[in-house]
């Protein structure tokens, strides 16, 4: 058994954190929300250059993946820095296409995975069990869609109008109903489920990072903000609320990495592990957001203060790629063996 990150994983984490920390992601998010994708795409490209997408791409297509543990590391950092863009969806699409290729439908993988690996293709998608919106379709090179209850994968011919989310970094659009069918049959159904698990897993890791960022910012704030002659962080009610926030995150973390291990092993229990991780991480992140807002007070409630970028994301990720109830239903299978 080995549950700590090894040296190369820690190095990867630190490098990614350094790159994202220097990238002024808050400005990139604000631009992204206005439809100005330039600064966000620059972050995307730097992440691609650090092989984030290679982690999701099998070796046959020039990648190093799938490496779920490293992907978890990456998504925690992406969440911690609130990086905008369809990272989750592109990684899920890589899972979809590689699984389809393993099941005999190799053409879409051959067409897209080499470009996904380099960051050269941004891909978004909708799948059964996810919501109706394809994230950031307006900036993507491909919008894949498997409609609920069907087993046909289509390359959508476009997308509907872009709608804003409570997370300013998330731009929502429905895939258009038309578009070239790429594959059909039970293999699509199975690959779609596999990809949806990867999406939920990536969201769980991202949410964990979002929660950590909210906690870190709040701890820093209450240490310096003074009221009634004391730092706000010296009040016991504040302390206890932050202690609970930390506890939620610290116990979500092993579930996220446990899910990574299960996905890496191709364990039959992986969907339940992913669901448990998503339920716990998204709950912990949302609780962190409520705490962060309350302990910041009015300043936290303003759009111009950067905290707002994480607050909205914590809310949005709750329902992305599996509602709390769906995740709990599936997590009941954890102990079914």
């Amino acid at each position, binding site marked *: 058994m080995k549950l700590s990150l090894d040296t190369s994983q820690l190095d990867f984490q630190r490098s990614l954190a350094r790159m994202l920390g220097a990238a002024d992601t808050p400005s990139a998010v604000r631009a992204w929300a206005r439809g100005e994708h330039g600064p966000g795409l620059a972050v995307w490209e730097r992440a691609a250059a650090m092989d984030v997408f290679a982690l999701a791409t099998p070796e046959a297509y020039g990648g190093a993946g799938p490496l779920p543990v490293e992907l978890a590391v990456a998504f925690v950092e992406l969440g911690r820095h609130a990086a905008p863009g369809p990272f989750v969806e592109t990684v899920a699409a890589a899972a979809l296409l590689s699984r389809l290729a393993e099941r005999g439908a190799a053409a879409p993988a051959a067409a897209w995975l080499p470009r996904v690996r380099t960051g050269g293709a941004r891909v978004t998608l909708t799948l059964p069990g996810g919501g*109706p919106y394809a994230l950031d379709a307006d900036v993507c090179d491909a919008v894949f869609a498997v409609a609920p209850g069907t087993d046909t994968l289509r390359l959508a011919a476009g997308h509907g109008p872009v*709608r804003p989310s409570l997370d300013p970094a998330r731009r929502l659009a429905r895939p258009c109903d038309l578009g070239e069918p790429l594959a059909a049959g039970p293999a699509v159904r199975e690959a779609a489920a596999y990809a949806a698990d990867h999406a939920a897993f990536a969201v769980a890791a991202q949410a964990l990072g979002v929660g950590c960022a909210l906690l870190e910012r709040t701890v820093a704030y209450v240490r310096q903000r003074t009221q009634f002659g004391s730092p706000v962080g010296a009040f016991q*009610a504040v302390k206890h609320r932050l202690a609970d926030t930390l506890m939620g995150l610290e116990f979500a973390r092993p579930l996220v990495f446990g899910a990574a291990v299960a996905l890496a092993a191709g364990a039959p229990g992986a969907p339940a592990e992913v669901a448990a991780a998503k339920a716990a991480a998204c709950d912990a992140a949302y609780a962190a957001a409520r705490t962060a807002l309350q302990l910041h007070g009015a300043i936290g409630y303003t759009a111009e203060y950067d905290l707002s970028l994480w607050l909205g994301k914590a809310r949005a990720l709750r329902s992305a790629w599996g509602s709390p109830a769906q995740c709990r239903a599936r997590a009941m299978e954890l102990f079914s063996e």
Partner: protein
Amino acid sequence: MDLDLTAEEEAFRAEARAWLAAHVPRTPLRSLETREGFAEHRAWERTLAADRWSVVSWPAAYGGRDRSLLEWLLFEEEYHAAGAPGRVTQNGIALLAPTLFAHGTQEQRARVLPPMASGETVWAQAWSEPEAGSDLAALRSVAVRERGGWLLRGQKTWSSRAAFADRAFGLFRSHADPDRPPHHGLTYVMFPLDADGVTVRPIGRLDGRPAFAELFLDDVFVPDADVIGEPGRGWGVAMSTAGNERGLTLRSPGRFLATARRLVALWRETADPGDTALRDRVADAVIKARAYQLFTYTHAERLAAGGSLGAESSLNKIFWSELDLALHETALDLLGPEGESAAGEWAEGYVFALAGPIYAGTNEIQRDVVAERLLGLPRGRRRP
């Protein structure tokens, strides 16, 4: 004990319902937190006032109907049930007016209240400062004596409505005395937002809409006639009606009853009836909305009998702010993946509700007050 209305109350309620049915705009006004929406809401106040529905519990002389607190609650239920617009005049009516009734001069009331009731003058509150949020007594903005009045200097923030309002009210430090506690020497003043020396910087709330503003005050002249109560005694003036802000006149049950009904409707539309987890949350919200209604009736009755609403308004504040959040969080969860959409009244209501546990005295402060004043636990120095 009974919940029966008198014939007169029933008639009043019916009259309100009929008027609202005939007058509430069919399509919702634009958001109060936009310039156009603000103007639309101001126009709506004119409509309300024209038929004397804007301040039903006030004396007729100021535009009211001399109605009881209970009747006002009934009006509020009808108002929210009818889906009528948010009240742009709320800060004035709920916060400033009770202070004027308690501490203002006859002249002030006659001058200030009628245009407040008609929406001609929209009021913003100006309590907080950058270093004085929960710790309101730490105010630093000053009122300096000047012939015939005062000069205001300093900075106020989180001033609700100030982005588009006409006038504001707040506390300023007028008498410095380092030997006395910090809430001494404050003065309660009303001042114009378009006067010389006032700079208003709108601040966007979470969804970017300018729900409040920063005010920079640079020798803004305020005549003595716009001081409420005695100079230097403003803390007492403000606190004597602070219960109103936390309590029932700021957030009447009608608002939450209407939201709870909408939530039940949403549940019927969207939820799997077998999903008892969400049903239980909807039921909890329904139960709490009903509890808030009955709690408020009880307190209104006590007030009508000459009682007062003291620290109990802190219970009230915690309860409605948490209920409002629970209502909206449950709605977003019912909406599933649509719940993250920033459009729609549930999303706007959610963003609004998020502020509830913070403004009008944070819920942390209110819990301290409840513990100390209602339960008699040892008084803290508000220190860790």
